[in-house]
């Protein structure tokens, strides 16, 4: 281990140290505010260390592969964690008597996500995924009042455990076929393994992708999503929707690219079926949701269906593979920033229990800033020009056209068309006459307003002036 490697690992080390300091703080003197500041400072230090590590790009042992792509997404995940921290500052104020552990769990979960996006080996993938997941179960169940968080946590725990078991079984089959557990080694040896025993490679890869599909809530594995999104505290929902899913998707892209799984046509056909089902079923189920968090949950299923199209298109691109990676990165960034904006407003306005659509009646008159942010987020989800979502969709459609995947392109169009209906419904609800119940005193938002405005500006900036981000992503 030389100093370069230590420098490259510094984001992970910095996050681990933050977790340790939080534990020491909780054992010396419990204080909600201090714990919040320690976590914030720890995350900011990690951002700095990512910046200093970005000049290096190398493999660290067999487990981790630190490159510009992974570091960029690590930075994005840390940003998600920071927004989650900002949202959680007040929500647990009156509830549990021990709030410090929440921050500890949040840091540990972030650590798991950072390991996940830099994983180059099935062992580190599994370690990162479990660290991220196990901390998340506890975060979901953190509020002491009400049954919903507990129900959500148990559902997520049981189904996640099944997904992890599937993932492990898939890895075992792939190991049986190739005799290697690192992504690159697997990819190199899978071809000869495929000749010997095609079933072993295909079944292994399919089971692994199913396990990952669960975490991304792709359709047939999407059942847990609405209940968990609704039951979890909104800050934790934000964390789950952006950090956990984003990290898992990056890991999936790495596995498919480095493990060269895109070479097996039947596997890609199976992924196409999953993508089409996710786009259609996700959008269709979102149509009639009355709870805005459930709506976001189903729409996330659809969005990861769109993202899957980019993965499927990759092998068809020939020499324009760079475009595929750029499209995936751009769409993921756009989706994460938009989701952060939407859920920030939901946390600010809906409060903890009440994410019912009625709570948003006439929001334009009560909290104009919040309402505009949510409206921009919804337009971005729908892919209306001048928002981040439009540029993301533009990228995806260009990619699908280049790859000449007409069925997927058609489904993407139909899915987006259906989606406009329910995204606009949210905006119509906000512009309706204020509901009788909601005419009372407006909640004081204070510094939460700027967070929402900042995210709205980010969504608009990425959409209307995307060149800096495109350049940045192109260099990864």
């Amino acid at each position, binding site marked *: *281990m030389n100093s370069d490697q230590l420098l490259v690992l510094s984001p992970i080390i910095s996050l681990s140290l933050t977790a*340790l300091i939080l*534990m*020491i703080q*909780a*054992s*010396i*003197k*419990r204080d909600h505010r201090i714990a919040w500041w320690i976590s914030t400072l720890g995350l900011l230090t990690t951002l700095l260390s990512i910046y200093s590590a970005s000049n290096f790009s190398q493999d660290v042992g067999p487990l981790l592969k630190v490159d510009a792509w992974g570091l960029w997404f690590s930075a994005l995940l840390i940003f998600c964690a920071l927004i989650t921290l900002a949202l959680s500052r007040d929500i647990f104020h009156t509830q549990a*008597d*021990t709030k410090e552990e929440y921050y500890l769990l949040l840091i540990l979960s972030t650590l798991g996500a950072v390991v996940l996006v830099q994983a180059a080996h099935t062992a580190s993938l599994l370690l990162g995924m479990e660290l991220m997941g196990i901390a998340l179960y506890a975060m979901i169940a953190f509020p002491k009042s009400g049954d919903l968080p507990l129900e959500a946590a148990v559902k997520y725990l049981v189904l996640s455990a099944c997904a992890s078991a599937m993932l492990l079984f898939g890895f075992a089959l792939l190991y049986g076929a190739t005799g290697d557990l690192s992504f690159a080694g697997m990819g190199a040896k899978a071809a000869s393994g495929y*000749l*010997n*025993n*095609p*079933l072993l490679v295909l079944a292994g890869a399919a089971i692994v992708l199913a396990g990952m599909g669960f975490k991304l809530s792709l359709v047939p594995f999407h059942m847990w999503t609405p209940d968990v999104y609704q039951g979890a505290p909104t800050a934790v929902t934000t964390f789950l929707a952006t950090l956990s899913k984003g990290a898992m998707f990056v890991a999936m892209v790495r596995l498919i690219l480095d493990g060269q799984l895109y070479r097996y046509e039947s596997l890609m056909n199976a992924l196409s079926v999953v993508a089409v089902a996710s786009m259609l079923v996700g959008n269709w189920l979102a149509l009639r949701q009355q709870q805005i968090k459930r709506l976001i949950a189903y729409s996330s299923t659809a969005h990861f269906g769109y993202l899957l199209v980019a993965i499927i298109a990759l092998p068809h691109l020939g020499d324009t593979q760079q475009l595929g990676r750029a499209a995936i990165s751009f769409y993921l960034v756009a989706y994460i920033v938009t989701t952060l904006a939407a859920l920030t407003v939901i946390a600010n306005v809906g409060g903890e229990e009440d994410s019912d659509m009625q709570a948003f009646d006439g929001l334009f008159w009560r909290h104009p800033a919040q309402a505009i942010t949510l409206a921009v987020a919804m337009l971005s989800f729908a892919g209306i020009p001048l928002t981040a979502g439009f540029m993301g969709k533009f990228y995806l459609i260009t990619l699908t056209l280049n790859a000449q995947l007409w069925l997927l392109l058609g489904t993407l169009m139909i899915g987006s068309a259906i989606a406009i209906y329910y995204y606009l419904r949210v905006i119509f609800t906000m512009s309706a006459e204020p509901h009788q119940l909601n005419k009372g005193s407006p909640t004081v938002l204070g510094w939460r307003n700027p967070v929402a405005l900042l995210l709205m500006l980010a969504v608009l900036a990425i959409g209307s002036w995307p060149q800096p981000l495109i350049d940045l992503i192109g260099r990864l």
Partner: protein
Amino acid sequence: MSSPDAEIWPLAVFTLMVLVLVITMLLMSWLLGQRRREDATNEPFESGIVSVGNSQIRISVEFYLVAIFFVIFDLETVFIFAWAVAFFELGWHGYIAMLIFIGVLTVALVYEWRNGALDWGSKVRVGLKEAQTLEAQQATHL
């Protein structure tokens, strides 16, 4: 190269045999076995003794905590033993890595201790100082 179909048929035969075996066993015992219907026939029992009470008992959560601690510190010894066997081969690198490992575990132990996880009986989930003042208050009340 053998085709996948050729490789999978033993599995299919095996599955079929398992099904046939189970069905035969159930069928035979249903056909040939004796049937009784007395008071205690359908009651659950264990080792020939009729059970007492019900299964919905509450177990103190402390047993669970102790079990978790056992797993953690048990694993710690496993790693330390593995390191000790190769102590000279691993050299300073191994030593430093082990120091970090034990350091993290020590922090965890301090955390558990300060949170009252090691106390048996009533839990006071506050720091030591607060716990002492609380005890003093209770003493004055008495």
